[in-house]
């Protein structure tokens, strides 16, 4: 089963269309394997992007280099998944 240890979901807010295009270009960097949970749409709308733990520093560096502000929406994806799994097992046992 695929695990997501150290994976993060970043929330990026692009201030203008040029910044939206920069975030979109992040998705074209195949080696980063980013997964847009919420696609780059328009300026000021939040963009959520899932990045693996392996590539998180590179993705953050790319955003910072381009002057884009972001916050960490999900600190560690695997923690949430384990919580979800625990709940399902507990409920089934009950």
């Amino acid at each position, binding site marked *: *089963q695929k695990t*997501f240890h150290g994976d993060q979901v970043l*929330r990026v807010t692009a201030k203008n269309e040029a910044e939206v295009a920069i975030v979109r270009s992040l998705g074209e960097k195949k080696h980063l394997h980013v*997964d847009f*949970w919420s*696609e780059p749409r328009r300026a000021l709308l939040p963009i959520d992007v899932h990045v693996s733990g392996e590539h998180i520093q590179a993705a953050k560096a790319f955003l910072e280099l381009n002057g884009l502000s972001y916050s960490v929406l*999900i600190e560690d994806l695997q923690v949430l*998944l384990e919580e*979800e799994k625990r*709940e399902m097992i507990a409920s089934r046992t009950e």
Partner: protein
Amino acid sequence: ERNTRIFSYAIYHTVEEIFAWMDTFVASNAGLVSKMQIGTSYENRPLYVLKFSTGGNNRPANWINFGIHSREWIGPATGLWFANKLASEYGKDPSVTSLLDKMDIYLELVTNPDGYYFTHNENRMWRKTRAKYSGNLCIGVDPNRNFDANFAGPGASSNSCSETYHGPSVNSEKEVKAIVDFVKGHGNFKVFIDMHSYSQLLLFPYGYTSTKAKDHDELNALSKVSTTALRSLYGTPYVYGPILTTIYQSSGSSIDWAYDSGIKYAFCFELRDTGRYGFLLPAKQIIPTAEETYLGLMKILEHARDNPY
């Protein structure tokens, strides 16, 4: 689950548990609910639809499918609660009773069972179907880019590794073709709703063109009524509008196909949340999500009931 009354709607369930629940649910509501199989998935899982009907022949009908993108677990979870709510309110709630006395409702609770199974057993973040095509580097197709609505146009990817890969041909996905064949064969659907998550949006055609749908004003007004009702319960804010101008361009989507096929009330819900948990909405939010969504859905279904076309 031996009894739908002891079934927990407040947790996420596997596809096997949902299928078992369907049988119990149908048995508990004989005369109102029946189960139909409209096809099989790529990996040969049944594509089940629950039909709510109080009689009549080929009545005007409402279609709602859940979980076409498999990682959006809140969809099927909301669908299960909604099905149970409809069955328990029929004969008690005047609006539900009047609705089901005039129209049928079809619910496809697990629209992409292969993907849903895969999210439970292999990769929680899987979104697409599990179809393999020779020559493709990656597995799976985005079923919501595979409908016949400007297929393979802007807003869909030709790269099989993309999350928005449109597939090798229109309706190539068995899960999509089953819906298309069933809806066309029925011929009397008045409402077509596709339930997704997340981002709290109520969307209507079009996604593939910026041209306004000819019923834009009515759909926009109905969206306002629906999202206002939804918000009235827990204050959950929703944005509404055409897909393209509200979120982004997308070709090959289910509701664009439905609308172009003559189903006026074609909508797409994006359920909770605003991004704190994304696709990993905690199970404790299932019931509140389902409760508020019910209010929004009912406004659309009631409007279709009261405005025959």
